[in-house]
């Protein structure tokens, strides 16, 4: 078993980096690897609850909203830490706006991931 760490700096609507992070995290969890996400900059917007985008294609980027996808990974054991400074900068109220299991951390958490993970993927 390996430990994969992800640094995600992209938001839900400006790039598909969140989707790549999700797909790789999903595949890694399915193979029994350990997965940790550190969401930085607009990555902190990804787990915000109650995002809705009606009439989206079942085969497209928003078949489900990013937050729903990451909630599933968290439920299956992935760790998801958002940078607290980035959270505050975006006016996110972590206790209200984030679902259960999404943690707020700081850069030392990223430093720990870099020290502990076998691979770090920056997206």
């Amino acid at each position, binding site marked *: 078993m390996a430990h994969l760490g992800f640094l995600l700096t992209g938001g839900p609507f400006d*790039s598909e980096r969140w989707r790549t992070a999700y797909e790789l995290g999903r595949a890694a969890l399915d193979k029994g690897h350990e997965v940790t996400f550190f969401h930085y900059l607009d990555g902190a917007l990804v787990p915000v609850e109650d995002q809705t985008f009606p009439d989206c294609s079942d*085969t497209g980027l928003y078949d489900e909203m990013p937050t729903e996808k990451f909630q599933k990974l968290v439920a299956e054991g992935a760790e998801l830490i958002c940078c607290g400074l980035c959270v505050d900068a975006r006016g996110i109220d972590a206790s209200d706006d984030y679902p259960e299991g999404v943690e707020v951390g700081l850069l030392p958490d990223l430093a720990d991931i870099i020290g502990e993970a076998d691979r770090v993927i920056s997206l």
Partner: protein
Amino acid sequence: MKRDVVVLLTKAPYGRVHVPEGLRAARGVAAGFDQHDVTVVFTGDGAYAARASVDREALNMPGHVADLREQGGEMVVDAAAMAERDVSPGEIADDVTVRSGDEVSTLVRDADCTLDF
């Protein structure tokens, strides 16, 4: 007042909302009270979105395109942007007209207003 509006779609289509949401805006502007005349121009990396082989369904394009056409809106692609990206006219979707770089510039200059996404 009714206006000639050019909507420029400039970004690569997949992975961000700019092409589908730009099309949504285009048809919204065409359908408003003034019934503005709207021309959508695929330019820059947006030229990739004018290719027939793009998965329009995955991009949520079909509904917006149908509405836009119903409002009389047109879609054109910038041949100058295509050339830079090695996209050939044969690759372009049937409902998009290839226009030369000069024709696109003229279109933009003659418009009352341009929006870009």
